[in-house]
């Protein structure tokens, strides 16, 4: 199976060789090719040793018993079984699986950025999305995938089969992050194709004005969607890379600005932190979950955020 190259579009002559290596190494490329395996390993690893569906879930469908251990909820003890066997059993139930998770992944040019020794933000987002899709499929839920930049470019409708999962992962693997971002516009387009109420997970760097974003998300909230904003950022974006005087080129607009990172670091850090805090504060104010995911962090952080979301959705 041939995968399209995840490398960014060619840069002006003379600069390509300098930039290429900083975005994705050959090793990273190989790892990215095994996105399915990665998702599988990540999700299975995350749940390894855990009791499956320990939460009662909304369907309350009985699955089996387990021995009572101190710490289990007392109201789950099956007193009838105790009468028969003189042992304490706790009843366990299958979780509800009839749920759709809409995964919207930002593929704009800014997601192409990769800090030194780290993979590009998009790859991190793609891996999180793949893992979530795998998790959905594994739990019997349905997952949909939307890839957007200045518009919704790719849409995979909800599905829970393994084939559907492969299609989503294939779509993720075929992405070439480029062009500018129009997140509100893409969300408005997505709102039209997300017909069934469910969970909306948006993976983006959210380096945009928050007001139009929340305006666009308002229609999802109105329709009862639970929304999780996974803000994928590289540590360089919060700390600035360790350069002195450098000409910074915007990956989306190609705008250039020449600054001394050392001199601006503190001020820049304050500004980017203020922007992230504003996004998080606005999200919380609207009942939207927000989680910053750094490319240097573990992928499980995103899974935990998602699962936390699911818990609160109940």
């Amino acid at each position, binding site marked *: 199976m041939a995968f399209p190259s995840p490398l960014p579009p060619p*840069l002006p002559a003379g*600069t390509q060789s*300098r*930039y290429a290596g*900083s975005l994705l190494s050959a090793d990273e490329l190989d790892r990215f090719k095994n996105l399915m395996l990665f998702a599988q390993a990540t999700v299975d690893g995350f749940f390894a040793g855990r009791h499956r569906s320990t939460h009662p879930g909304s369907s309350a469908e009985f699955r089996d018993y387990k021995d009572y251990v101190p710490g289990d909820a007392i109201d789950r003890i099956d007193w009838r079984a105790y009468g028969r066997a003189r042992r304490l059993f706790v009843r366990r139930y299958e979780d509800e699986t009839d749920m759709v998770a809409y995964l919207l992944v930002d593929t704009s040019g*800014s*997601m*192409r*950025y990769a800090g030194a020794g780290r993979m590009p*933000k998009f790859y991190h987002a793609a891996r999180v999305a793949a893992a979530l899709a795998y998790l959905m499929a594994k739990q019997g839920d349905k997952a949909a995938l939307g890839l957007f930049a200045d518009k919704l470019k790719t849409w995979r409708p909800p599905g829970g089969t393994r084939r559907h999962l492969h299609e989503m992962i294939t779509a993720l693997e075929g992405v070439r992050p480029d062009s500018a971002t129009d997140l509100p516009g893409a969300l408005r387009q997505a709102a039209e194709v997300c017909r069934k109420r469910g969970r909306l997970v948006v993976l983006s*760097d959210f*380096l945009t004005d928050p007001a139009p974003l929340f305006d666009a998300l308002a229609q999802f909230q109105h329709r009862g969607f639970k929304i999780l904003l996974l803000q994928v950022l*590289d540590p*360089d*974006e919060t700390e600035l*890379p360790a*350069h*002195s*005087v*450098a*000409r*910074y*080129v*915007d*990956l*989306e607009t190609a*705008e*250039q*600005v*020449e*600054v*001394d990172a050392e*001199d*601006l*670091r*503190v*001020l*820049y850090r304050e*500004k*980017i932190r203020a*922007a992230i805090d504003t996004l998080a504060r606005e999200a919380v104010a609207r009942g939207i979950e927000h989680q910053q995911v750094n490319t240097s962090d573990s992928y499980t952080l995103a899974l935990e955020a998602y699962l936390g979301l699911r818990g609160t959705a109940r």
Partner: protein
Amino acid sequence: MTFLNAPLFWSLAALLALPLVIHLLNKRFPQVFLFSSVEHLKKSAAERSRIYKWRHRLLTLVRTLFLLLLLLAFLKPVLDLFGSSDRAADAHRQILLIVDRSLSMEYRQAGVTSRQRAVIEAAKILGTLGTDDEVNVIAVAHTSAVCFESFSPNLAEAKRFLHQLAPGVTRADFTLANAAAARLLAKTKGPVEIYYVSDFQRRNWALVDFAPLTGRVRLFFVDVGAASPENRAILGAEPGQSQVLAGDTVPLEVTVGNFSSAPLDDVVTVRVDQRHQVQQPVSAGPWSSVRVTVPVPVASPGLHLCEVSLPPDNLAADNRWSLVLPALEKEEIVTLSADGDAGHSPVNFLHAALNPYAQQAGSLLPRHLASGALDPARLAGASKLFITGCGPLDDAAADTLAKFLHRGGGIVWFMDSDADAANLERLEKAMATTPLPLRVGPLRKTDNVGSGAQQLVTGDFNARFLRLFRGGLRQDLGLLEFYDFHAASATGAGKVLLRFGDETPAMAVTGHGLGTLVLMNFSVGEFSSNLARQRIFPAWVQDLVKQLDTREPAPLAFAAGQLVTGEVWREDLRRRPFTSPSGRVIEVRQEPLGERAGISFIPEEAGFYTLADGRIKYAFAVNADPEESDLRPVDKSHLPAELAAGQVSGFAGGQRDYDEIAHGRSLVPWFLLAAVGALLLELALQLVFRRLAR
């Protein structure tokens, strides 16, 4: 300010552009960095203050300054001292050392004399010279000794000259040294450094003439004097009487100087002929001199070598004073009068004044001569004549007196006789060309003693015959009353020394040939004046005798460095040479004077220069210059701070100063310090900018 490595500047100047080049390269070829969004970078940069935006230029400037200071330090900057930059870098130096060799330089402190310190400092100065540099040395005493005819590169010989400088006993004549230096300067071209190595004793340096030093010279004063020197010295010694007679006890008046802040309490020792000595305690306050009288017995006629001393101190040379005491036989003084010396005649009073001692023990032996018996034969053995109560003199007697005067005799004429007017008229006639100072009228006598007395009112106290009445002692003349005197008036010849209250001349003096005539318009008789009853009378009479002697007495002592003259028999010179105090035979300059010879020499040592043939026949005492004993230095402001154009001066001392004069003062440490300051400034700016960045 100059740079010793100045030629390297242009080869290293490119380094100065390094910070600017790096700055421009950063601006021109910055590292291109792809970033997700530059929005926040733009906002952050827009909020920076204006000075913050200029920080790179400011820091570039500071870094350039740092490199510049470092580069300048590498070029070895030196501060030009006293016009050292006037000399071309490749020109050789010419140094003239003018070293003080006066007596004061022999002051010893911490075991080292100022002269020895001067030699050490001079050696340091010579040590700054290179092989192409030239030097000359002038040793300054009363005369100047020059090492080379002209400037020479022979440093070894100059050092040898310095090390062979003998201790000085004279003053230092720096005006003479400057004249010698000017002659040396005339022989050379280019700038010359002149170093005065001295203790700057005030007497030597009070009036030094620097005007002869023309051209491009730099004067440096190197003070090698001791700190707070304290000294005591014998400043002089002379007998208290004009003539010393054999067997007499001479009151030797010794002047002791105490040139210190502590009082002097010591003992003066007088040693005569190395055989016997007399000691006398002496006390003097701080910074003062005192005169002490030491009775010195003189046993026999002839020359007696007398040495006065104090216990040695740090300057021992001036603690001794040498003098030669010539002991004479008695001198005959003729008194001329009409009467003898019996009873209360004025002659008797004069005889008592001339030799007031019992059994004629005094140095003067008066002999009476009747005025009627005056002839040349009776005056042949005398050179001094006192006339009082003189009878009428004929022309022959007047002629005898005139010739007596012309040959060098001295006459003191008390005009107390009725015949004096006529006698003096005859004498004036006999003297022919020499008018008398007084026109004498009749004798005015007072009938009643105690009424109509005249007193002396005015006098010329600078005259040698009134030497005893100088200063406050002139009040002794106010006690005198005169009852008998001649009506007289001044002729304008000679000089009137004393006048009575009515302007009548009381004392006048004139010369005739080699002799001196003193006219006293009064009498020493007891009914003519109260002069004979005064205590001053004998002293005055004896001083008149001394002052009548027109021959200059041989000085008792000479100062080192000054010309010593004398008269000796040529036969004595042929037999024996003169020897110095150290026993060295000296060359004396001779001038034939018949069988005798005039001799002269300049003594270089203190002590007795003698010519002895079994016994001492001639002796000249030579002493250190007493003006050297006050060791206080001259006020430095008296030394020239600025000379003519192109001439500078200053004080120097120590190896560092000499090096700085030779090469300038090194500013390398200051430039390095400034470079460190520039680094600290950059650090401070970085901190400020970092604080502004927050």
